[in-house]
């Protein structure tokens, strides 16, 4: 049988959604997203079963977490801008974009650390605090992985590993970073916004 699709030349080691890496990461995101769904289920379940007001002590303050959310989103934006650059062959733009994203991501992690330090009690104090530290902690672990990915991309970009024609890793790595940001929005909404909506 003549397969028409075989008659045209095919890209070797393609990038984007035609590469295996892209599909692999999309699948990783599916399963990681499920992990966060179950952690947030734990929050909702313990909250709904709580005999006392939830969260204990009222909704956590937005003073740090609000601006920090903006910082993380800006980081995604900067990385995206860098990626646009390498697609047009501008290596400098990629390096700059990744560097900004890395710095903003590190700032986010630092502020998150401040927020942890400002809590008067630790995770073993109550179920709520166990949830708070565990879920933000699991997210922070994802941020750490994301920062390592950004750092690797930055080093490789600086060494000239990526060109307009070959930047498969950038797209896949940044997909992960965008996912980390998107998950933060869900975590942020769960811990900081839902108590203000009167859901529990």
């Amino acid at each position, binding site marked *: *049988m003549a*397969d028409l699709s075989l008659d045209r030349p095919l890209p*070797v080691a393609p990038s984007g959604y035609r590469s295996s890496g892209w599909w692999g990461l999309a699948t990783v995101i599916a399963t990681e997203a499920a992990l966060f769904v*179950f952690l947030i289920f734990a929050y909702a379940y313990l909250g709904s079963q709580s005999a006392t007001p939830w969260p204990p002590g009222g909704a956590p303050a937005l003073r740090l977490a609000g601006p920090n959310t903006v910082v993380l989103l800006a980081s995604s934006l900067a990385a995206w801008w860098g990626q646009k650059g390498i697609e047009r062959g501008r290596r400098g733009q990629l390096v700059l974009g990744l560097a900004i994203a890395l710095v903003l991501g590190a700032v986010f992690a630092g502020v998150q650390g401040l927020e942890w330090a400002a809590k008067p009690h630790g995770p073993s*104090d109550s179920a709520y605090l*166990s949830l708070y530290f565990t879920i933000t902690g699991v997210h922070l672990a994802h941020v750490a992985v994301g920062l390592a990915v950004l750092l690797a991309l930055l080093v490789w970009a600086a060494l000239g590993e990526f060109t307009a024609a070959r930047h498969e890793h950038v797209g896949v790595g940044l997909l992960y970073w965008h996912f980390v940001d998107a998950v933060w929005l869900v975590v942020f909404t769960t811990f900081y916004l839902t108590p203000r909506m009167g859901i529990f």
Partner: protein
Amino acid sequence: MVDRALDPAVVLERRQLAQTWETPRTVVGWLSSVDHKEIGKRYLVTAFVFLLLGGVEALILRLQLARPNEAVLSPEAYDQIFTLHGVTMIFLYALPVLSGFSNYLWPLLLGSRDMAFPRLNAFSYWTFLGAGVFIYASVFMGQAPNAGWFDYVPLAGREHDPGLNIDVYALGIVFLGVSTTVGAINFVVTLLRTRAPGMSINRMPILVWGTITASVANLFAVPALTAACLLLWLDRQFGMHFYDIAGGGQPLLWQHLFWFFGHPWVYALVLPAMGIVSDALPTFCRRPLVGYTAVALATVATMVIGFGVWVHHMFAVGMPPLAMSFFGAASMVIAIPSAVSVFAWIATIWTGRPVWTTAFLYFAGFILLFVIGGVSGFMTAAVPLDWQLTDTYFVVAHLHYVLLGINVFPVIGGLYYWFPKMTGRLMDERLGKWSFWTAFIGFNVAFFPMHVAGLMGMPRRIYTYPAGMGWGGPNLITSVGSFVFAAGVLLTVWNVIRSRTRGAPAGANPWDAPTLEWSVASPPPAYNFARLPIVASRHPLWEDRLGEGTGRSVLDSDIRLTEGRETLATTPLDAEADAILRMPGDTPIPLLLGLALTVLFFALLWKGWWLAGAALVVSALLTAAWLRPSRRAPREESARG
């Protein structure tokens, strides 16, 4: 087919492919191999070792329960052994053995040269082995998990179980989850990307449907268990309060998370095995499977409904009747897709001309066991009746009919079926038939009386029982049967060992089977297909005789791809050629990463935080080395030529 093996150009081409794809026969080569066939065989062998270990544990339990007031085991030993038996069979045997078949077979079934991520595949095996070693290390510490494979809190909390036992469980399960997850990712992407041109989704073997359904389900179900175990470990190590009532936690949170994972997992353990039957049984009936589309869709439907029935493990926890009605009814509905498959198999035998090989006997026997396990499941789906049946031996009978009936019998049948492909030699049929009848009779003698014991009110997970309850008779029969069943399994093991060197040569297609794996030599060359096939029907090797479809599959196409390790990528649904993938070579990195993770988990178990940190750093560096970008420039070329 014209034998072109003597054509000098073809000889040269194959030599070139062999040089590119073959793993050097050295220790380092062996440890570095990313060949899916090699990994598949390792999975199978390791899973069978765990099957035997779990079986020995079961026999010890049966000695203890053979008579009332028996004192072979202390209560503590009994609890550790029955927990280990469950953990071994469910986590370390049942899914890995299916991963073994699927790893070995998928690229051959789909007409590809390897899985989408060969290195990930090797990593998935090494982490499976690492997690198995991690869990079994607890046996040598005398602190094996002891709160059941379901590990309910607060019994599994630190207050009631202060040893390392449950830490081993929680960390071991998270560790094994890494293996399961990356394995599932590999199957999903392989299915989406590396099928042969023309292998559209309605031409895929049912085994592929079963494994992809299980893999997608695992992507969403395994994180529930990972989350549950992570929270348990945090409760135990850092005094958190997820499950602990005093601090505002809830014991039932564990049960929801556990069963949200647990029920889909049960289907992940059976659907690929049902796929084995759906693909292999028709070969011996000399006809295609009746109702291919219905069976494929039933496979998916089972899993979709399977995500909505987790609460049927929790009918006795005191739930609102409306919730129980919903989950009870959903549990009834799940029988419908199973009925589709059962009737399709029977219709296939009925309208075919069965050839009674050993493999066929295992598949036919499986159908009866599946129906018995199915109807007892149907009884437990009836909520008020479940209040009586749950946690009795009736459920033990049910789950063994389901798990052994649907997993072990098809797996052994599949072994008889594909062993010639894997080794080039047939297994002994006479010994095989002895093994079948011994195992089949032993199985029923062992597990059928458990229904009776259960209906007589014998609870599960008791290390002993008093005389005069009427339970002694059924238990003695069960214990005798379990040894007969074990003998049947051992006969197959003996058959494998013997046939590996002494079996009759098999040839490429000893059963005259219809699917692609039988179009290549037995055992297949490292590169699988010298020329990638172009598929035009569900039964490429039967289509001439069946007159199936309009076109004809091309097994000896002009798709050569000899420039290094390459295979073809196709589009997800229609399987049209889309790209040429460069495949990675052999590398020890997956093994080293698996070792680093093993060190990490042992460090976490013994709270060696510095060692854990070091293992994490090493893991990160290994991952960076793994993912280092290639400098080879992208290009375009024709797949033909």
